[in-house]
């Protein structure tokens, strides 16, 4: 277990009568970049949201850096963590959303400062310095004073990535980060993600960008109907899918 940064074990999740995840297991090594693909409604976003406990799992376990997420285990029984303990765990897990969800009443700089300031109590000067460095890293140092409504979709998503990085997370989760973007804005976000992957960040990326999965990913997972149908090195899965469902899906998106 010490060798995985994220370990997902037999996770099940149902919404009412619909079972969205039907026993999913996945290992992500430190610095690994796992891309998760699959048709819409396959459960891939839900899987991601189970890692930082935006969704409560019905059974199974999730560990991040060896720490059981959402529960404590005493004498073989699982107990739900208290809200403040859960908040502590979430600090370690960055998340980037399809629709950015930047805080619209704050500037780009304030968005990036918000986590360290409010959650960790970092001093204003220090968090400001750190936020400016992060904005510079995603290529937006000159947009620090802009409100999200004054930024393009691609710029907003890059600010959102900087906002997550500001918490210094051990893992970054990306939930279809480019799906809401105009085609010409996709590359600038993917470039930031490639740089991040190259810097050694552990990432789980739910995406439809097969090009990104092929170049930047070191593991590809195809999910359909709540189970992992096929997984392996991206080039292999993409060029040589073994299952009919994988073939059918790739035939539609490639």
């Amino acid at each position, binding site marked *: 277990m010490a060798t995985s940064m994220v370990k997902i074990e037999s996770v099940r999740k149902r919404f009412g009568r619909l079972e969205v995840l039907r026993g999913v297991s996945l290992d992500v090594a430190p610095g690994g970049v796992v891309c998760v693909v699959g048709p819409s409604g396959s459960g891939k976003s839900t899987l991601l949201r189970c890692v930082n406990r935006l969704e409560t799992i019905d059974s199974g376990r999730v560990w991040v850096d060896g720490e059981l997420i959402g529960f404590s285990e005493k004498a073989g029984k699982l107990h739900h963590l208290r*809200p403040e303990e859960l908040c502590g765990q979430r600090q370690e897990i960055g998340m980037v959303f399809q629709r950015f969800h930047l*805080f619209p009443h704050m500037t780009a700089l304030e968005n990036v400062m918000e986590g360290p300031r409010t959650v960790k109590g970092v001093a204003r000067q220090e968090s400001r310095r750190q936020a400016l460095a992060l904005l510079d890293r995603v290529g937006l140092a000159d947009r620090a004073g802009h409100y999200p409504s004054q930024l393009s979709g691609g710029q907003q998503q890059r600010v959102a990535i900087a906002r997550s990085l500001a918490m210094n997370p051990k893992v970054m989760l990306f939930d279809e980060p480019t799906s809401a973007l105009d085609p010409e804005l996709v590359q600038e976000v993917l470039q930031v993600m490639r740089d991040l992957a190259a810097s050694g960040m552990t990432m789980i990326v739910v995406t439809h960008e097969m090009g990104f999965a092929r170049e930047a990913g070191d593991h590809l997972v195809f999910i359909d109907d709540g189970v992992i149908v096929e997984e392996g090195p991206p080039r292999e899965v993409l060029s040589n899918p073994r299952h009919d469902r994988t073939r059918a899906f790739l035939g539609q998106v490639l």
Partner: protein
Amino acid sequence: MVAAAVAALVMVWLAYTIIVNPNLHWDVIVGFLLDGRILGGLWITIALTALSMVIGVALGVTAAVMQLSDSPVLRGAAGLYTWFFRGTPLLVQLIFWFNIGLVFPEIGIGIPFGGPMFLQWPANELITPFTAALLGLTINEGAYMAEIVRAGIRSVDPGQREAAESLGMRHRQILRRIVLPQAMRVIIPPTGNQFISMLKTTSMVSVISGAELLTVSQRIYLDNFEVIALLVVASTWYLLLTSVATVGQRFLERRFSRGH
């Protein structure tokens, strides 16, 4: 073009009949505008409005947060509160609070359900027209504000909460730093209307002799029979207050629409 001309003509004619009307006693009106008693009533009106709005908003935020909580007991309590106080007339509530001593002759602080009392006062001393007015206006306002705040909180995209949660922010921090500031954009305009409405609603406390602007005007005209003149004086002040409040409302709306 024609409509505008007609409207202008009507307005000029109305102004003319009012200005030259000998029954209006312009000298009396001007004389009383800055009368000490009127200014005293004006002060009470402003104080009642400000206090009942501030406490009413606090009550409303509390009730709204309770209504959106996961606990059925909290939701039920808040629901009962808004149901009762929005469902009965304010006028009735005001008279009720003024006469609360008939139900609870002693009001104090102590252990509930018949335990010992640490402090207590006779209700008739505690409940002056001002405290009764403040109680009535505040509790009534809180019930209306609860609905306004609730609508504001619900207008915030759930994704905002998720983004804040994924940063590790606590429930309270999310409410205070992320949700409420955005809800403000939806909450401020109707709250401004509530404030302006409250300036005028305070006149209702004249039924319990609240000593605000209308009460003092009535006291004066019962003395000198200048009914219309004093109503014009009161109206002038009400208009001035509401106009100032409208300007303030504009300013606040602009302040809270930052980033949009």
